[in-house]
């Protein structure tokens, strides 16, 4: 196998944990079942139920945890009929505990934290997909503040804009891809974040330590500029942002996961993940979460949904066969009715081949249709563990 396998963590861990970064911490997963300890064997914090989140501090970094990411995916429209999808991901991975303090020592070239970031842009009209990965150590060129949202990696950054009014809260994202793609976006959540899971903890596997704090702004208003080559245009759209904090998320027999964020035209949002096990079955800790207009989430288990792959796409780059048309049939806990969502990529090749991190995955803009083929929303889908599995390495 050319690439190290993808992580078998829960949901969106995929790319982050890529390769080496990832691999080192997989050893720390051995937290035993039973009573929930406060820390992992290595001394990283384990998400505890009942945690009270305080903002904007909790938008910032939590170095007492091993793994953290800020993950934005969204859909943009430019002038005329130009339509784009974008992904902006900032990962943080602790290589060692910070020794009781929250702050890593001041150093231009630290090695307490590793920051990986992925930027991607897909032009839905032309099918052109571009992405870039970046890896840096904590220090002069990559950092994440602990008191507010301010994370950067090279010339890429995501930060909370200065404001006192909680309603006016907004984030600023800057990304470039290569020499000629540049987007600078203002992201306004409008509502407080959704906190997924039970009592502030989102479980990923049977092991109780495999869990995260999972905070999401499911539909942020986006406005800004996008430069393609010399042409600068203004863009508007909607984005989904996850902020997830954990120290270990892996189940022992998981090979990868499928993840979906659905933004429906009727205003509802859904988040769904299916943890895939070695035997091809769906892990019981998989879930579909229904988010209502007030950003309240209701979780349903695998017995309440059916995840069917109708078509596959073969990647010429990595040889992986990714799902290319997915039917999600799920029972709406509010109505008890089963709803059907047909999720289809807008562009087949939205694979991030993993040159830097060493793990290939697919993360792409999709359309959502109902059983009658009527367009009912947009989605981003993430597919990991198809190019290679972590199993066999451990």
């Amino acid at each position, binding site marked *: 196998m050319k690439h190290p396998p993808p992580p078998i963590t829960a949901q969106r861990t995929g790319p982050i944990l890529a390769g*080496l*970064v990832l*691999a*080192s911490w997989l050893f720390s997963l051995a937290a035993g079942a039973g009573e929930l300890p406060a820390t992992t064997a290595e001394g990283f914090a384990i998400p505890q139920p009942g945690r009270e989140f305080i903002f904007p501090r909790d938008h910032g970094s939590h170095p007492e945890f091993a793994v953290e990411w800020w993950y934005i995916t969204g859909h943009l429209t430019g002038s005329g009929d130009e339509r784009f999808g974008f992904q902006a991901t900032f990962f943080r991975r602790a290589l060692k505990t910070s020794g009781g303090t929250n702050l890593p020592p001041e150093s231009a070239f630290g090695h307490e934290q590793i920051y990986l970031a992925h930027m991607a842009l897909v032009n839905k009209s032309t099918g052109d997909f571009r992405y870039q990965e970046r890896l*840096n150590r904590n220090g002069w060129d990559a950092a994440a503040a602990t008191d507010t949202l301010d994370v950067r990696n090279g*010339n890429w950054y995501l930060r909370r804009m200065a404001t006192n009014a909680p309603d006016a809260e907004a984030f600023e994202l*800057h990304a470039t891809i290569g020499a000629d793609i540049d987007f600078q976006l203002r992201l306004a959540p409008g509502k407080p974040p959704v906190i997924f899971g039970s009592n502030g903890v989102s479980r990923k596997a049977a092991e109780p330590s495999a869990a995260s704090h999972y905070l999401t702004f499911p539909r942020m208003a986006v406005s800004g500029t996008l430069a393609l080559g010399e042409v600068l245009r203004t863009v508007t759209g909607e984005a989904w942002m996850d902020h997830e904090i954990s120290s270990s998320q892996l189940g022992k027999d998981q090979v990868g996961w499928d993840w979906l964020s659905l933004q429906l035209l009727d205003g509802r949002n859904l988040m769904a993940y299916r943890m895939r096990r070695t035997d091809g079955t769906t892990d019981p800790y998989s879930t579909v979460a229904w988010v209502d207009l007030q950003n309240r989430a209701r979780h349903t288990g695998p017995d309440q949904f059916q995840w069917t792959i109708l078509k596959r796409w073969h990647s010429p780059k990595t040889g992986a066969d990714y799902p290319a048309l997915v039917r999600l049939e799920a029972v709406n806990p509010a109505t008890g009715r089963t709803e059907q969502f047909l999720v289809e990529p807008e562009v087949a090749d939205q694979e991030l081949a993993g040159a*830097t991190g060493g793990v290939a995955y697919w993360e792409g803009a999709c359309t959502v249709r109902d059983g009658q083929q009527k367009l009912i929303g947009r989605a981003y889908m993430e597919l990991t563990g198809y190019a290679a599995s972590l199993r066999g390495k451990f």
Partner: protein
Amino acid sequence: MAPAPVGISKILWTRFTWRHWCQAPVSSFLLLLILALGVATFFSIRLANRAAVLSFQNFAGLITSQSDGIITAPAGALSESVLPELRQRLGRSPVTLVPVLEASAVAPTLDAHQTFGPRPTFQLLGLDLISLANLSRPSDGLQRWFADSDPTQDSGKDFLSVLDRSDSVFISPALARRDQLKTGSRLSLVINARPVELRVAGLIPDDPRQPAAPVNLMILDLPALQHLTAREGQLDRVELVLPEGPQRAAQWAHLQQRLQPPGDAGPARWRLSSPAERRSAASTMTQAFRLNLTILSLLALLVGLYLVFQGLEGAVVRRRNEIAVLRSIGVTSRQIQRMWLMEAATIGLVGGLLGLGLGWLGAQGAVRMVGLTVNALYYATSVETAPFDLPEAILALFLAVLASILAGVRPARTAANTPPAQIASRAGAASDPPGRFLGRPGIGGILLILGIGLTWFPPLHLAGGTRVPVAAYAAALCWIFSAGIFSGSLLAGMGRLCQRLKPGSVTLRLASSQLRSPSGRHRLAVASLVCAVGMTAGMAILVGSFDTTMRGWIARTFQADLYISSDGAQTASSDSRIPPETWKAVAAHPAVERVNLIQVMPLEINGVSTLVVGNHMDFFRDYAHPAWVSAPANDDVFRPDRNAAQVLVSESFAARFNVRRGDTVTVPTPGGPRTVTVAGIFSDYGNERGSLLLEQEQFSKWFETDLAVSLILAVRPGQDPETLRAELRAAHPGLGIFTSSYLRGEALRIFRQTFAVTYALELIGLVVAVAGLAFTLASLLWERRTDLNTLRALGLRRGELAGAAAWEGALMAAAGTIAGLAVSLALGWLLIYRINLQTFGWTLQTDRPWGQLAALSLLVLASATLTGGIVGRWAARLPAEREE
């Protein structure tokens, strides 16, 4: 004149030119070979020079591909605190910043006996191993670094273990093969006078798009190297890499504008330059040295061309009858001329091609010699091979063909002027000998005076501090020509003298009768010998003077007892330093009476590279006994309390920057430019870039460093330096410690090593000149073959004829040698007082190595006599010319 049928050239070529070549394959081949030798000399030196310049490589370039820009400090190290500032200035620009730290290291000497001088040095490159992942485009990223590291470990663990310890080093696959190292192997090195043990963390990955990592390259994580070299917080430079894409050019313009140092906010903290600018700075540094080599190598080519001329002239004479026949059957004189020019061009082409092959081979040897010098005097190179270079090859071939055609112009005209057979007569044939202008002493006199006039001209100043003594080179040329002309008169005089003495020897009488009124061909052969002998002897005088001067300087300068530097770091290019805790411990030893602490900062003043040196001025005065070009007016400069920014500069510095005592110089420092006053100028032969001596405390403050390059110790009376040396060596195994007597010998040895190339070139020039003499004799004797037959008919034996030829050769060689030695004295003066002084700013004490000059003369005389004898024996066997 009606145009000739198309096929005539071809017929002439195959039936005439080619046939003659085939009839005398040995001499044809020799002619080609000698021309090839000339071309080869030129080509190999050019290739070796090129390789030495190219080897000033940006080692980081192997990893980063080509960077687009380089940020350095105006002076000294770059603080890593500029990094966030640069990122902020760059704003949204997608530039990857690659901080780089460099160091060198050597393998420790295990036994007590240390040798001075360059040892195999490792180049240590400190790079942020994590952000390297962002550079590979396209590639499989960091795994290439960590993939093979240890199959039993997973890559992530290994990755962390590399970052977590500062002794992890990545080595080149070539070194791994050579020394049988693998991941986990231990490696002992001396870095900055400190023995360290490193662990091989992996191999530098091979990248098919890049040249393979040199065997001596090692890569460490940047903070680890900072720690190992005690340079925490410091960088040598930051390389800027722009992403690929159509916007790249626009991005670069934007970036240059963004990184302009602030005009108002204090001194500039960085300097932005392009990689091309850095490479050209390196090539400027060695420009003078390389130019001198090129000029020397041209000499061999010129002598080779003279031979082509000789060979063609001889051929015209030998084939005169055939030409006459051709003319009488209607071949036009223009066609004849074209045929000869074609022959000349063919000789140039074939000889040139042969020369390229020989030259490429020679370059592989020369490159090591050139590299040795560059290493000792300028910067670290790891050059071992000189790659073939097409433009250089085309230049050499072009020169060979062009010059062959030029050499063929006259013979071709002679051939074209050959009358048709009907009116041909032998008397007419000899009426137009070559080199007639050489028989005019008046021209010689004019050239002599012109040369004298040219010595008053100053050198040509090029950018970067390079000075080229154009007028002095021209003067040398004038004098060589002038001596060549006078040597013809000398030859005639010698011939007449021999006649008058009426020697008993019939062979000498025969020889001298030929020389009484020497032919143009005689004069040419002697003139070329004058040129070769003059240049060789002139260089011998220069090198001899250099040697004497160096010996005096070394004896004067190395008067203290012990000299200490980081082990294996005794070249100008070394960047090894002694950390303060080490030099303080050494200085505190009870047997030490006085200490001089030497600190060095290479930097650029007004775009010209030079060295600023920190040292104790009073120690310098007391133990280095400087010879003053311009002595300080008072003692203030030697007293730290009264020094007040006064400096001493070396003679080469004064020449490079055109300063005199009392002038001020502005020196860039991390804290901004400082102005110093030149209090005195001293002679120095340590380096050609020039040095500016600053009081050590001042230096330490201005350049914010307490790392020393070397330490010089004076031992208390009654203490034995050898004992102290052994004691210090035991306490500090990373130091190279030498006594002054040992150092004096070694310094001279290294100095002499740097002249190795020069000697090789001169030898080639001399061989070519003697071969030319042989050719001349051969064609002279050919012309006289009827006379030779008559002489044999009169009863002379072959041995006697050979003896006559030997005498002829010997007398010509004698005339050439005498005139050559005479001009060499003038050239020696020119080399010492004009060319060398103007190029390097080194005043030398003249010394004429008479022994060497005598040996040279004997060598030329002996080989000329011997060749004369061999050619004469050959000529004596020539059949008599058939009567028509």
